[in-house]
């Protein structure tokens, strides 16, 4: 089981895409399919971001090692779904109208936060390989990848602003994000105390 964790996680990460495809070919997405696909992809991206961020705390708290082995995979898939989400917005939702999109991004915090999140995930996805880790040196690589915490924050507020009124579900997910980030803060503080 533990040896197969990577292929299992890979298969699991494909499920949402397959599921969307099956729905598209069978029952459809209701009256406003573009909105549904856009929101589903955003949701999947957010969940994968949370799962990626959960790997390290899982190691710290439960002393498990296997989550770290799928962290890169989860992060890459998170970026994959983020790209599909962005493409749906740019293409299907906005019809590739560059003028409208630029205006939308600059004028509206909601869109700006989403775009910023994707822009932060981009260098992380590119440098997620072993090769880049070596090229940058582990210290610099690690510093760069701390950007994912900021992305967790901007993604949360992007998710929150999507609804006219705050949703309980979104608030719960934000709490999850906060807990995941807090674990690291506590861990860092603990190490500092131990070192001194």
């Amino acid at each position, binding site marked *: 089981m533990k040896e197969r964790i990577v292929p299992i996680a890979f298969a699991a990460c494909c499920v949402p895409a397959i599921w969307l495809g099956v729905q598209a070919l069978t029952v459809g997405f209701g*009256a406003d399919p573009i909105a549904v696909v856009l929101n*589903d992809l955003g949701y999947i991206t957010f969940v994968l971001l*949370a799962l990626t961020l959960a790997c390290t705390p899982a190691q*710290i708290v439960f002393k498990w090692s296997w989550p770290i082995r799928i962290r890169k995979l989860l992060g890459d898939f998170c970026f994959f779904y983020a790209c599909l989400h962005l493409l749906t917005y740019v293409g299907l939702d906005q019809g590739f109208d560059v003028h409208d999109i630029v205006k939308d991004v600059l*004028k*509206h915090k909601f*869109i700006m936060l989403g775009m910023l999140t994707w822009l932060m995930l981009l260098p992380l996805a590119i440098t997620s390989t072993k090769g880049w880790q070596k090229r940058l040196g582990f210290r610099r690589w690690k510093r760069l990848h701390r950007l994912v915490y900021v992305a967790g924050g901007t993604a949360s507020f992007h998710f929150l602003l999507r609804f006219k*009124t705050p949703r309980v579900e979104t608030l719960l997910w934000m709490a999850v994000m906060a807990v995941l980030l807090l674990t690291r803060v506590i861990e860092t503080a603990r190490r500092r105390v131990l070192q001194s």
Partner: protein
Amino acid sequence: MQITPKSLYLRRRDFLKLGAGATLLGSAAALARTKVDHGPKLAGVKPNPKYAVDEKLTPFEDITTYNNFYELGTDKGDPSENAATLKTRPWTVEVTGEVGKPKKWDIDEILKAFPAEERIYRLRCVEAWSMVIPWDGFPLADFLKKHEPTSRAKYVAFETVVQPSMPGVKGYAGIPFPYLEGLRIDEAMHPLAILAVGLYGEQLPNQDGAPIRLVVPWKYGFKSAKSIVKIRLQETQPPTTWSQYAGGVEYGFYANVNPDVDHPRWSQAKERRIGEILRRKTLMFNGYSEVAPLYAAMDLKKFY
């Protein structure tokens, strides 16, 4: 050494459950798009050719499964799923305030006294989607005049239904209930403003605001209050739900469709017609330019 308090463990477990649960629920909901039964036909409804638009009608199925009706749930599919939790009989509509003849109507009395005609209107939601809907209804002005509004009747306030059985009312929907709307008297008396009792020649489905709702086609959809129980004519501008929300971050009292005034979080310049892919340009007053004189002296960027 243990550094994580127990509550974190528990929350982590909840979080895993939440993820799995949400995915499953989402999938189930997506597959089970509610089939909407057709309601009883309305008798003697004739189309009014003055109010027809030369655009493709939005299918009945879309109009009845894609709704904003927070008392029945906050997701678009919730109102059709929870429609049965709204009871539309017995139903009364109370007209009070600055009128010579206040009256508490029984809904069937209204249906008899005000024969409905078909009017095809565009509906533009504040969320930048739109539909074309064949409503069955009668002018709001006819209804209001029956009660002989006094000279002090400057505004009309609408209050909508709250029944404990409605799931959104029980839970947290983010807005207070009852849902309140309002119009200026000249807006309410405009021939375009109607009270609708049906669509596609059938009794209104509950999720679309049965048994009686407002339709004001030149304003964003939320102004067209559903399932009305009280109408009050008054001298002062009434508080309305979305204009009061979080200190007015959503919309003002007027909420006229206006491509030049953005929503705080998105542009209103374009809209997606349900059933189409590419967005189309949003028209000022949703294309109903005949209402422009109502706002001749107003800065609509300020009074949005």
